[in-house]
């Protein structure tokens, strides 16, 4: 990967946004996935769901107009788009668990080649566990995509054969968008969808330590 250039966070958000279809109902997770909202292609209509009982989440309000009764899952102030609706928590998670969301995009600590997801707990001694809606989203949306950097701070691949962190869900991730390449996960393992320029499949396989099917 000497000469290849990693996607920055915004470029990665744009890469994810490019694959979201017109008319989709989408839940964006905390952190990096939240950026996707600002990168959706113009001319398509996407309804954003927030676990705390909102469909039709709009952009952040201008400074001074924040209303903390209208926040997203990360407790950041948001707005409601015309046509949006409020509902209670049991209904909100019925939408999620019941397969009514087309897509959710989540961050991750690790994803396995077969789509197991670890994104809620490092399992470290003294770490306070917190799960929120991650487990419901991971298994409930019709498709779950992960958005993350491919390598951790030590340079180890976060795409792995088996997750070492505690699992959020089993075989639930369909695609993984990273700063170096895009992958599909499935029972047969990883398929390479695309990669940044000048990054070969061989180099990616060496980086991840797992075989990659597909061309790119």
């Amino acid at each position, binding site marked *: 990967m000497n000469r290849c250039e990693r996607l920055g966070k915004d470029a990665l958000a744009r890469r994810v946004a490019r694959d979201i279809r017109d008319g989709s109902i989408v839940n964006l997770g905390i952190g990096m996935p939240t950026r996707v909202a600002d990168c959706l292609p113009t001319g398509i209509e996407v309804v954003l769901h927030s676990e705390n009982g909102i469909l039709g989440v709009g952009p952040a309000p201008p400074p001074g107009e924040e209303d903390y009764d209208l926040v997203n899952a990360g407790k950041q102030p948001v707005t409601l788009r015309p046509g949006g609706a409020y509902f209670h928590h049991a209904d*909100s998670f019925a939408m999620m668990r019941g397969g009514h969301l087309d897509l959710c995009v989540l961050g991750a600590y690790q994803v396995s080649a077969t789509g197991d997801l670890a994104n809620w707990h490092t399992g470290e001694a003294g770490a306070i566990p917190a799960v929120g809606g991650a487990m419901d989203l991971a298994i409930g949306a019709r498709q779950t995509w992960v958005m993350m950097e491919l390598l951790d701070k030590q340079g180890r691949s976060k795409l792995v054969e088996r997750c070492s962190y505690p699992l959020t869900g089993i075989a639930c991730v369909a695609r993984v968008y990273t700063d170096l390449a895009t992958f599909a996960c499935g029972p047969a393992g990883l398929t390479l969808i695309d990669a940044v320029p000048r990054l070969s499949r061989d180099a990616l396989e060496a980086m991840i330590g797992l075989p990659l099917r597909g061309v790119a």
Partner: protein
Amino acid sequence: MIDKIAASVADALHGIADGATVLIGGFGTAGIPDELIDGLIAQGARELTVVNNNAGNGQTGLAALLAAGRVRKIVCSFPRQVDSQVFDGLYRSGRIELELVPQGTLAERLRAAGAGIGAFYTPTGHGTELARGKETRVIDGRPHVLEYPIRGDVALIKAEAGDRWGNLVYRKAARNFGPVMATAAEFTVASVHRIVEPGALDPEAIVTPGIYVSRIVQVARVATRAGGFKSAATA
């Protein structure tokens, strides 16, 4: 005549016993019934089990109840926040028990309690640490986990407006757990900013019918403060 209006927060909370399970609405700071929590601190009940999505923010409200040493156990989905220092300290020193529940399972366990459902199977959490030791069953080829209702002795919730029958409407995303907690408790107290005459709330728009509400009490409107921010996964 039915009149559920309490003259004060203290009147509304009269009778909450030591050891009670208290369902407290809110998500972060939105929908947190701060005045009722302050009232519970003043009321004095101890050894409480508290059910809330989070575990308190900053030093006030639920965090103050925890700091006062009145909570034996908390049932929640997301205790760890940037401003959950009171809970973090109690948890790390072993002075509070935590039951961590996926958020949708938390909401559905409350719903089940209110709806008279004995237990339910959910796919959420299957194969994870949070399902360890629980019964499982494969339904339509998909593994599910058996989950039991969470019933409250008391629910403390925040609504926007109500009438003397206990009918309630909420404000924006401050609705969150209020409606489902109202159904799940033996005794539900709602704080409201406005009390209106029966008939003034549009019957098509009432979110919580009065059947689920025991007492309502009017409190001054204070803008919901910021709080409860999550930090992103950073590994």
